[in-house]
């Protein structure tokens, strides 16, 4: 690995929800790195803030949410300092995103091929014919049979797996450097899931795209990611190489999470869970947010911010084993 700047660098990202004078932080200091060409996973429960983090990279936060502090550096450019037109140029061309539900994410009134066509023509100086040809190439690339006919189809005429492929084609149509995949397979059947995962992996290798892969499914993360960050209640609690984090988890949350995955050789009996519920969206938190549910919680966890521990690229935020 080079010691040059990573492709994407997030430092101390805070995202707040609210209106006018009353804002509450829901993402509370996220650090993240994605190097060119690597696949980084972002794991967490619903409400942990992973989707918001992703949307903030694209500067597509929903109304009522805003970045309250932090830095987002992409390819050396400070994203938060960009004017909107400049940011819009980056979108689709350098950074792209695919979303969870491909049916609602595609425009129902416009043929899918046309949606890809419009994106291509926005970012690339191609003629109509050339762009149309490129659309068919892309559909073929993502594994859609009969691309010429399928391009004229509408989103509701395609199956879930095909729609996700179309979304991927749309996202990679202008060769972005970074692809953010926000739970791309959650809405799909398990069998289709596997196919789409294979397709994603193949595409990113062929095109050399870095991927930020967001999911709550640890298996998928293990399948495709090089590194992973684990989020809880708006913070990254552990991050490192996938093997390191999954084989030797250092944060109790990660450990307990991994234990919850049912295994064929795990014997029978009561399935392990993590007791309790994650903190409610927007509550003010002190100390370690996981403390109430943590099996290794100490007295100081609830009150004092746990320190960041680093060792060989493996980071965790916990009091455990500290003096």
């Amino acid at each position, binding site marked *: 690995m080079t010691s040059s700047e990573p492709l994407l660098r997030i430092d101390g990202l805070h995202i707040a929800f609210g209106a006018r004078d009353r804002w509450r932080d829901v993402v509370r200091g996220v650090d993240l790195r994605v190097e060119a060409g690597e696949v980084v996973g972002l794991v967490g429960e619903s409400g942990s803030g992973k989707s918001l983090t992703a949307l903030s990279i*694209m500067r*597509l936060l929903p109304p009522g949410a805003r970045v309250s502090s932090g830095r987002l550096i992409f390819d050396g450019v400070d994203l938060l300092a960009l004017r909107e037109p400049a940011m819009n*140029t980056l*979108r689709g061309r350098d950074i792209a995103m695919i*979303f969870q539900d491909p049916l*609602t994410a595609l*425009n129902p009134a416009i043929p899918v091929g046309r*949606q890809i066509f419009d*994106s291509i023509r*926005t970012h690339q100086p191609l003629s109509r014919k050339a762009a149309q040809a490129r659309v068919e190439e892309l559909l073929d690339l993502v594994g859609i049979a009969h691309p010429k006919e399928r391009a004229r189809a509408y989103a509701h005429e395609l199956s879930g797996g095909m729609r996700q492929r179309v979304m991927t084609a749309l996202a990679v149509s202008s060769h972005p450097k970074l692809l953010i995949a926000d739970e791309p397979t959650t809405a799909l059947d398990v069998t289709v899931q596997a196919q789409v995962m294979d397709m994603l992996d193949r595409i990113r290798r062929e095109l050399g795209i870095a991927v930020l892969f967001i999911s709550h499914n640890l298996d998928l993360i293990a399948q495709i990611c090089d590194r992973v960050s684990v989020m809880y209640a708006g913070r990254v609690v552990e991050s490192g190489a996938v093997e390191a984090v999954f084989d030797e988890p250092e944060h109790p949350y990660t450990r307990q999470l991994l234990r919850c995955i049912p295994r064929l050789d795990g014997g029978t009996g009561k399935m392990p869970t993590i007791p309790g519920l994650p903190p409610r969206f927007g509550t003010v938190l002190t100390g370690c947010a996981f403390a109430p549910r943590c099996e290794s919680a100490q007295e100081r966890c609830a009150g004092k911010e746990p320190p960041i521990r680093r060792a060989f690229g493996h980071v965790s935020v916990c009091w455990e084993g500290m003096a």
Partner: protein
Amino acid sequence: MLSLFLRRAGFSLLSLLLVSFVLFVLTRSIPDSPAHIVLGDEATDAQIAQFDHDHGLDRPILVQYGVWLQRLVFHADLGQSFTTGLQMNTQIGQTLPVTLELVTVAFAVSVVISLVLGTASAVLRDSPIDYGARLIAVLGVSIPGFWLALVLILAFAVDREWFPPGGVSPLSDGWQDHLLSIALPCFCLGAFYMAVLTRMTRSSLLDVLGLDYMRTARASGLHPARVLIYALRNALVPVVTIAGVSFGHMFGWALIIEQVFNINGLSHALLVAIQARDYALVQAVVMVFTLVFVCANLCADLLNATLNPRLASAPA
């Protein structure tokens, strides 16, 4: 798409037939029969019977209807009025174009303004433009057109004489005068529907802008103009439907506006017919209204199916 269109057209045709039949029966069953009107109260039964026979009014009602329908469909002839003896085609033919022009101009201007205003209002939400547009919309919806007409005549045609207070100056007298003479009537006619369509456009666009596929469009880095078009392709569907309905309704309100401005349009024909108890003409005029209304709705459906092809495969 063809099957949907045929089904809608079929239903519209059925509506037309039904309405025409109901009206036909009504106009020919009231005690105030054409014979009485023409021959007067002193007419003997024999005279009445003769009159009825001469005009084919003594045949069974279904037969009469059949004859009327046949004449209408194959010869486009609305027949002759029993009381005045005039050809109704001519009477309507003279007055329909005036009303048609009024409504078409008012409609076109309303639609354009409301699309622009409604879109701006939604895109620039909570800005002064938005508040202004919403205020205008509430006023437009609540102030009755004919009162607006009276007030505007008072303010601009009597006090200031910028516009003529009534009548329509024919095109042959110069297009400037013509435009000035239809300006106030068209404004009063269109104000209500402009308000309605503005509100509809605004709320529909706001709904669409918050949907997932708009987020995808922005994530693809499309130009803001194209993002707006992506939204409008979906948001305009209910607006087009309402616009189609509005066109027909405007025809109805033209009745009143024409009276205020003393315009010799279809309303004049209708009200004169009512006063003269010329019920055949009343029926004919209402038929024309229905026809216009049905056609406008069909066009709206057609436009919607082109705009948003998913509707083409959905059931009516």
